């Protein structure tokens, strides 16, 4: 194991962290504003993957371009889901059984719709870029992963600007940090929840379509990624958008480097173990830890 191998693993981990952040952020914004854990996350990610596939097979649109097109399409899908179902769940300050059951049920429905429409076969998307790599000082970088990383990063920059510089973005952060103060400032919580659900699903669909460029998928697609999103969101402190990026880097590094010591088939177990450790040791996530340090220092 030389230095080159370690560097290769490190680069691979960072590239992975980009898509992991985009994948988790949708869950985080929804949790932040609505205090609901989106158990249908995997279902929407799966739809995102098949969206890229259909666009590529039927309309011959490049799957990377389709990922970007997924953003408005899944925003509308999220808004429609909120209007038709989610808004009827009573508002609460923490996840409630009705919200969990509704979204879990929705996931099952989406999965079975997936089986009905696309069957159970493993599907994947090939493009000219799928196998391309380039080398830089001994580090091998798959081109497709670099582009996926770039799109993920751009989406996060756009989200950051949006959350900090628009009235709607500020209202999302306000409701995340103190819901009642938001109401007293005149924020229409129902409307904000609807648009936030759309925003969260837009990112989830984008992530699913991007991941379809990297991995094969079936209607089960997304469940292992949903688990990782949980870990990342918990590490990030549930409500902190910058914490999510840190959480994603940690999960990506641990996953990538763990293949040095444990067989790749244990990767699921690693996510689970991380989740348990995070909940036991860091109940407030990285953000909570930093705050504790600041208070001490």
């Amino acid at each position, binding site marked *: 194991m030389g230095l080159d191998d370690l560097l290769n693993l490190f680069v691979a981990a960072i590239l992975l962290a980009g898509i992991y952040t985009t994948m988790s952020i949708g869950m985080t914004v929804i949790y932040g504003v609505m205090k609901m854990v989106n158990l249908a996350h995997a279902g929407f990610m799966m739809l995102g993957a098949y969206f890229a596939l259909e666009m590529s097979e039927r309309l011959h649109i490049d799957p990377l371009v389709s990922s970007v097109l997924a953003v408005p399409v899944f925003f509308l899908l999220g808004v429609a889901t909120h209007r038709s179902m989610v808004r009827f769940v009573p508002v609460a300050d923490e996840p409630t059984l009705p919200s969990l059951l509704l979204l879990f049920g929705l996931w099952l429905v989406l999965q079975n719709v997936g089986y009905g429409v696309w069957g159970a076969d493993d599907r994947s998307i090939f493009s000219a870029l799928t196998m391309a790599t380039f080398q830089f000082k001994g580090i091998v970088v798959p081109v497709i992963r670099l582009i996926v990383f770039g799109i993920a990063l751009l989406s996060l920059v756009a989200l950051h600007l949006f959350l900090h510089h628009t*009235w709607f973005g*500020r*209202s999302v*952060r*306000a409701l995340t*940090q*103190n819901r*009642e*103060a*938001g*109401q*007293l*400032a*005149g*924020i*229409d*919580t*129902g409307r904000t929840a609807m648009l936030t659900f759309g925003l969260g699903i837009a990112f989830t669909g984008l992530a699913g379509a991007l991941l379809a460029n990297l991995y094969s998928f079936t209607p089960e697609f997304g469940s292992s990624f949903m688990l990782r999103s949980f870990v990342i969101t918990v590490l990030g402190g549930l409500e*902190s958008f910058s914490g999510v990026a840190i959480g994603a880097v940690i999960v990506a590094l641990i996953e990538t480097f763990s293949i040095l010591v444990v067989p790749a088939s244990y990767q699921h177990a690693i996510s689970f173990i991380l989740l348990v450790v995070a909940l036991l040791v860091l109940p407030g996530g990285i953000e909570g830890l930093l705050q504790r340090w600041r208070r001490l220092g």
Partner: protein
Amino acid sequence: MSVRPLLEVEDLEVAYGDVQVIWGISFTVAPGEIVTLIGPNGAGKTTTLRTISGLLSPKAGKIRFRGEDLSGRPAHEVVRRGVIQIPEGRKLWPRMTVEENLLLGAFAPRARDMAHEQLDRVYALFPLLKGRRRQLAGTMSGGEQQMCAIGRGLMSEPELLMFDEPSLGLAPLLVDELFAKITGIAKQNVTILLVEQKVAHTLEIADRGYILETGRTVLSGTGKELRESEYVQRSYLGT
């Protein structure tokens, strides 16, 4: 009083589920007045303000603002009409800067265009906030946070400003400054409804007051009348 009241609360009843806490509260606030609600913990003062703000729905009774019935309207519609509450415990957004907190105070559509002019006015009233505009609100002291909360409330140019226990947790020196700021705001034509535990202080600046006990209005009068009332002196002023 010949002037039509700005706010009229009439036979208000409010319950949390099966537990009724307000059993018929009535009071009015005329334009330009400082009116105070006084009473022990559990008398229903905070619940009354929360119901006016639309965070709770009344079980019975009316809340009229400029003659329009607001009872049961959602909070954002109440805010749009210029009825603003500065809640107990400040309730700032801790991981946002002071300036972001203030700007969001102008979220209501009618206030957005004026947000930056209004920001300057708030900074003129609270110069300390200007120096701290880039600081995260959660890292300020209680007194500074209260100033920020009041500033946020002023951002939408309110017609009626409701304070819930603004002096809670403040050092005695800051309490004097706080009351001076409240009277200063009242002089700028903002009508004020004040809920406060510091009864002596409050009755000095209030035009009128209402005593609430166990969810009912038991006594009302001008600030002076209440200060001199034997009942108020015995029960609230400890003399």
